[in-house]
């Protein structure tokens, strides 16, 4: 049992490093912002796409597929790189990110590549859409589940809490929210700009089965995601404590990388550290 867990983590960690390598390179090549926001959620994406989401590249339009709403659209690079590694479109296409005429805009457009469920970028939109999908699953008597990834700054938006109240009122246990709690938003600490803390208690008060987890620990993510799948009668909120800029030591917890993109030297150093040179 332990051995299996370790093996899984090992694979996932290697995948996550590769995806981080793509994302750093994409930011460098396109001169695109939001690199640190992308790096913080990659382990969560890997855990979802390789362990939990019932979505296959060959069935991106299957009506029974699980839905994943990536609500922190500013970090789209992380989702693109994950989808490419998962086989939804060629990895080579990542090189077109942010280029004129490319399908891969800095913030995704609807169905721009297979696997994109909803275009986000204006914050606070993903959870209401996800709640509508979770309700649809019930109305249509299908059994797809809906996962929604929010940023912590996004929890400033009132629509997040409108949607939370509705989800609880309708006992949407096929819905799981994951908050990428990297403790920064665009220009400051997310616990200081608005009173975000105590975040887990807030979700509990809104009727969710809420838990807190290290968002970079695959074994721990595996456990709480399993709990979400097994939840009965309540939607789940996973507060994933993460580090903004995770994986590149000189970007970690430095909010300048919300807007900065790496120069040539920084790219080389980052790729070296990630083992992607």
């Amino acid at each position, binding site marked *: 049992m332990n051995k299996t867990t370790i093996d899984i983590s090992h694979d996932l960690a290697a995948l996550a490093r590769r995806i981080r390598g793509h994302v750093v390179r994409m930011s460098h090549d396109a001169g695109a912002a939001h690199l640190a926001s992308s790096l913080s959620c990659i382990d969560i994406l890997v855990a979802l796409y390789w362990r939990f989401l019932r979505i296959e590249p060959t069935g991106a339009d299957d009506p029974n597929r699980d839905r994943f709403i990536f609500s922190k659209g500013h970090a789209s690079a992380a989702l693109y790189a994950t989808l490419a590694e998962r086989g939804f479109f060629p990895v080579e296409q990542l090189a077109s990110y942010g280029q004129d005429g490319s399908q891969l805009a800095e913030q995704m457009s609807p169905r721009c590549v297979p696997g994109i469920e*909803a*275009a986000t970028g204006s914050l606070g*939109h993903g959870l*209401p859409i996800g709640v*509508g999908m979770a*309700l649809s699953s019930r109305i249509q008597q299908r059994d797809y589940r809906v996962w929604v990834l929010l940023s912590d700054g996004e929890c400033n938006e009132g629509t997040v809490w409108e949607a939370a*109240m509705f989800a609880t009122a309708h006992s949407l246990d096929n819905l799981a929210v994951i908050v990428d709690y990297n403790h920064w938003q665009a220009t400051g600490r997310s616990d200081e700009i608005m009173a975000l803390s105590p975040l887990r208690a807030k979700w509990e008060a809104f009727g969710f089965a809420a838990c807190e987890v290290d968002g970079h620990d695959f074994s721990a993510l595996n456990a709480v995601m399993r709990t979400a799948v097994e939840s009965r009668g309540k939607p789940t909120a996973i507060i994933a404590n993460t580090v903004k800029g995770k994986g590149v030591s000189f970007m970690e917890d430095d909010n300048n990388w919300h807007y900065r993109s790496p120069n040539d030297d920084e790219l080389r150093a980052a790729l070296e550290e990630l083992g992607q040179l």
Partner: protein
Amino acid sequence: MRNAFAAELLELASADPRVVMLSGDIGNRLFDEYKSRYAERFFNCGVAEANMMGMSAGMAMCGLRPVVYTIVPFVTTRCLEQIRVDVCYHHVPVIIVGVGGGLCYAELGATHHSCEDIAFLRTLPGMAVVCPADAWEVRLALRAAMQHDGPVYIRLGKKGEPAVHTSEPKFTIGRAITLREGHNVTLISTGIMLPTTLEAADILEQSGVSTRVINMHTVKPLDESFLAEVFAQSTVVATIEEHSVIGGLGGAVAEWLSDREPLNGCMLRIGTSDTFLHEAGDQAHARRQFDLTAESIARRVGAFYNIIV
């Protein structure tokens, strides 16, 4: 109109299991029959219109046909960004139904008036904007919207509006309906101003001005070929709406006209002026404040016609 909406919705829901009704905590008793038959497809979404609109987009993405309903300002401007991003950007078939267009809720104050909604919604790519004139048209508009590929906004009055049509008219989104013929002046009405417009036409006829009346129930997409014919034929073309003269039917027609070669007809926009109402009063009172009575309309159109000729 709202009763006609509820009745038609019930029929559509019984014919199509994809139809889902979302209400923003209004319509007390209005949907009782629907709820008793299709409880699993009725959701009171509370006083949280932005979430309701986002949810409807999610449902449409999953193949359902959501109908989102509350009072006009709350189902349009209150959640405008959700309409823009979640509904229009994804081009999903959400039907937005607003009750109490224009000054229908005059008594409740300017928070409940809606004289800007057509302007906001018709700028959104892919959005159709339909303003039915009576109960017949409400039912036909909803039926047509259900067949429409993309989002539709239907702007209702409230209740007890006089019937304009004596039988079911031919109704196509984007196709204007001629109510009466005339050759000097054309009055183009949208939505619940149609009965008043017909009265204004009577007054104009009595003073010797031959007046045509058009019901342009669809503000977007505009019936452009029909407009070209109207402006070629009439000396004066007046748009009439319970909506601001900025950006509504009048704005849409003026934009269309400004990009054309010169046509015969001169245009006059009649609607609410660029101000909020601050005093108490019912819809008739509010209309008087904005000169939206049949007499005022006939007087203004007649005076404009006399200047031109």
